[in-house]
Structure formats: C-alpha cells, structure tokens
C-alpha cells in the first residue's frame, strides 16, 4: 500500500488529480456549511456581474440567484451522482463479467451477447430516453447512467478472470473443494482489482459529464441545483451575462480533468510495467 502511494505521488498527473479531487470533495462537503446562501434564493438584483460584490463573488443569474452558491451546492450533486452511479455500474458489471469469465462456455456466450447489446445502443440517447420515461429525479439519473456505463466493466472483469482462472493457485482452490463463489470472491477478484479501479476513476469522470449533459437538457432533478442545469439556464441569456454559463462549465471541466488525471496516475501506480513501456 505504501508502495502504491509512493508511485502514485511520483506521477505528476496523479498528484494534480488527487489535489483537484480533494479540493472538489471538500467544497462539496464543507462548502454549503461555510456559504449558507441558498442557491435557489434571490440574493441580489438579476444579472449582477461577477467581482462587483464580495458577498456574491461570481455575480447573479437571470433571477438574481447567487452563481457561486449554485456552484458550491452543484459540486455535491455532480460528485454524488458520479460516485454513486459508478458504484451501481460496478455492482452490475463486476458479477456479470466474473461469471462470464469463470464459467465460460454458454454462460459466457449469453452474458457477453447481452453486454455487447448494451454496448451497441447509443448510450447518451438511451440515458435521455430512460430519464425522460422514468421522470427526472436523482434516482432515475443515477440508474440511467449506471445502465449505460456497466458494459465496459463486465468486459474488463471477464478478461481478467479468464486469464486468472487457469493460474495454479486458483486450480489449487478448486482441488481443495472450495465453492465457486468463494473462489471468485476470495481468490480471483482481489487480483483483478487494479484495472477495475483505474476504469472506475475514469467512469466517475464520464458520469459527471453525462449528468451535466442530462441536466443541461432539462432532465436534472428539479429539486437539486447542478452545474449542467446552471449552464442550461444561462444559455438563453449568454449575450447579456457570460458568467452564468462560463463558471459552472469551468467547474465541470476541472473536476472531470482531475478524475482523468487520477485515472492516469492510478494506471502508472498500479500497472508500473505498462507505464514504463509507454515511455
């Protein structure tokens, strides 16, 4: 583990990524406590430009709501949706991939056809349709992002399990009469973990982009402010008030960038052989 942190901290992208992620998490957790301005309440005149009042540093939107407060509360939604939907996708994808790789044969065929089917469907279009039909809420958004993002997990885990199951220590477990579940959970999956972790960090980034795109199209949870919603709301007044669209977009950009960098750092740290070859 210390070895892991050492190599993680040696990779510049990993360090920058970790820094950005820690910043985003602390904003999401503590921000709303320090800035009690409700993102929904009118606090000043509409279209107040940024950097004019210290109480409303990033100005106000078309309804006089605090842009800065919206960005801080939006961090919660973005990070939460990103993390939870990735977790759900892992919960779906890992067992499917593990079963396909471990049992092989017909089980593998059936599960992989199922996975390929979901990979063929245009994911964003499916997410739009699902949220529209289930009605926009934080649950339907998380569910639809998970539905469109689990297939790569299943394929990755399948590949890993496929190569691990022929190893001698797994064969030894089979010979000693361990159950399939025990072998998959205790012997195989822990060794297949590192590429899954790398993929998961990139999936959180994609999930944040997906959530913001859905909210931008008006499919966000109507009770929660989010960065995508803010950009969408500022779109029609972009000619008068650039700041309403610019700042939340920068927030999305930085968080996604941070997570992508963490993914690269993790890749370097967890697959040192691969990263050296890459240079």
């Amino acid at each position, binding site marked *: 583990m210390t070895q892991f942190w050492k190599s993680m901290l040696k990779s510049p992208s990993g360090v920058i990524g970790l820094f950005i992620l820690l910043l985003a998490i602390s904003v999401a957790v503590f921000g709303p406590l320090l800035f009690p301005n409700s993102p929904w309440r009118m606090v000043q005149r509409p279209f107040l430009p940024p950097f004019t009042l210290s109480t409303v540093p990033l100005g106000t939107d078309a309804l006089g709501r605090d842009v800065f407060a919206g960005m801080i509360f939006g961090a919660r939604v973005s990070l939460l949706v990103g993390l939870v939907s990735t977790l759900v996708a892992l919960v779906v994808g890992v067992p499917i991939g593990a079963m396909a790789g471990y049992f092989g044969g017909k089980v593998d065929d059936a599960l992989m056809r199922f996975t390929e089917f979901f990979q*063929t*469907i*245009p994911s964003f*279009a499916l997410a739009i349709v699902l949220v529209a039909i289930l009605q926009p809420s934080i649950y339907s958004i998380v569910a639809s992002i998970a539905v469109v993002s689990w297939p790569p997990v299943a394929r990755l885990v399948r590949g890993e399990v496929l190569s691990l199951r022929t190893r001698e220590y797994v064969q030894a477990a089979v010979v000693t009469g361990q159950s399939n579940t025990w072998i998959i959970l205790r012997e195989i999956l822990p060794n297949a973990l590192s590429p899954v972790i790398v993929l998961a960090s990139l999936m959180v980034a994609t999930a944040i982009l997906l959530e913001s*795109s859905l909210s931008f199209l008006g499919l966000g949870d109507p009770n929660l402010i989010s960065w995508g919603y803010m950009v969408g709301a500022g779109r029609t007044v972009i000619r008068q008030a650039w700041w309403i669209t610019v700042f939340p977009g920068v927030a999305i950009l930085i968080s996604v960038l941070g997570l*992508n960098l963490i993914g690269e750092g993790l890749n370097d740290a967890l697959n040192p052989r691969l990263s050296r070859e890459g240079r």
Partner: protein
Amino acid sequence: MLSFVAQRVVKGVIVLLAIVVLNFFLIRLAPGDPAVVMAGEAGASDQVFVQQLREKFGLDKPLPEQLFIYVKGIATLDLGFSFRQQAPVSKLILERLPATLLLTLTAFAISLALGVLFGTFAARFAGTFLDTAITVFALIFYAMPIFWVALMGILLFSVTVDWLPSFGYETVGANLTGFAHVVDVAKHLIMPAMTLGLFFMATYTRMTRASMLEVKRLDFVKTARAKGLSDAVIQRRHVLRNALLPVVTLAGVHAGTLIGGAVITETVFAWPGIGRLMYDALLQRDYNLLLGVFVTCSVMVLIFNLITDLVYRLVDPRIEFAA
C-alpha cells in the same frame, strides 16, 4: 468478404430486433396509459376517443400481439404517429436525417484527420515542448462538456467577434442558391462540427500518440531502419499504418457517443437534425417521436460499426474476412 458482410448484417439485424423489443417495453414504461397519453397529446380526452385510439393502435390486444404489430410496423418503416407535430414519426426523422449526417460525418472527418495529425506530431517529437503542449490541450479538450464548448464557441466567435453565425443551418430568408448557398451552409456548419469534433479529436490525438510510441519500438521498425529506409518513410509506411489500427477500433466504439454529442450540439446551435428533433420531443414529452429517434440512432450506430469493421479489415490485411 461477402459472407463476412452477410454474417455481420445478420448479427446487426438481430441486435436491431432486440433494440426494437426494448423500445416497445420502454414505451409501455412511459407514465400513463399510452392511449390516454396519445389522446392528451392530440388535445382530447373523452372516453370514446381513448377507446378508438386503443383499437386503432391495437392497445386492447394481448401484449405479444401488440409486440408483433409494433415490430411489423418498424419493418415497414412505420415508427408511429407524432400527435404533437401532427405527422408520421418516420417522415419527421427522414426530413431531419441529412442535416445530422452532414454534421456528424464532418465532425468525424475533422476529428480523425486532426487527431491523427496531432498525435503523429506528438509522438514524432516525444518529450519536447510540442509534445507536452499537444498532450495538455488534448487532456483539457477531453474533459470539456460538449454543451459548454458549444456555448463558449458562440461567446467567442458570434458574440465577441461576429465571425460565425450562432444558430441554424442557413441564413433564414436569404434564399441563396448554388455556390452561395453552399458557402452559407458551410459557415453555419463550422462551429457545430468543430464543437462536436473537439472531444473526439482529443481522443484520437491521445490514442495515435500512445499507439505510435508503442509500435515504434517493435522489431520490424528496427529492421526497416537497418534496411536504410528514410525516417519519413518508416514513420509513414511502417509506424503510422500499424498505429492506426487501435484508432480505427476506437472510431467504431465512438459511433454512439458521436450521435449522443450530436443531440447536444444540435440543441445548442438549433441545427435542424434528428438530435434537435429528439430535444423537441423531450420538451413536449412526445414519447413516440422520442423513441423513434432512439431507434434511428441505434440503426445509425449499427451501420457505422459495420463500416468500421470493414475498414479495419482493409487497413489490416492480417485479418481474414472469414470468421
């Protein structure tokens, strides 16, 4: 070659059938009784009319029979009727399809050409300032949400400097013909196509760079060098050709993402394609139209995947067409 194509087409049709079945059940997941929803969309809701709709669309029949009718309808390009727009869904989609094809294919061509170019440069000058600059820009473009890129483009090129039009397919009311019309459409196309292409350009840049660096160290490159071939020839004929394989694979995987991005791009730029149509359907909760566009998008992805599969086999002669 022919049997390979036939095999892929059969596989595509099976996937398509599965998508249609999924679609059928999604429609039934939509809130409310479909007949009541349709009646509401048509602006009437008395019992007699609802019953008529039920009979007309076979909603009073058992579910398997309804499914059969639905699949049969799609096989004959009948995607249902949009009451909001008062037109058959397939007619609405076919009208909008050319604009979407123009946008997505232009964006795809731009992103692939520039991505491979930048990626090659970065790999050629690996470790230099140029490489770092390209890599950093690719990372940033890769993390920007498409809708935001679109709006920043409008802010820069339409609001700050009035160079490019910010919405539409052509200048309304200009009634241009011939070459002037082509120029007009091209001007409207630049920003949406660049917006949509930027993300993919970043991906192809990263992929080409990584892949070229990997191929560069392989033995056959050393052999080529030992034969006394010039550096340019080695880069172009030996390294790039092999390095392009994963890029082609990636392009196939991205077909769905490209179409998803088109929904956003068309929405922001009021580009009259099926993505914009999907947004309109979404705003009006016009489920028939929404799902019709969804099926169309899936078909486009299937066709695109088939084409990339063929290209892959053309670029890499080692892969045989027989399965």
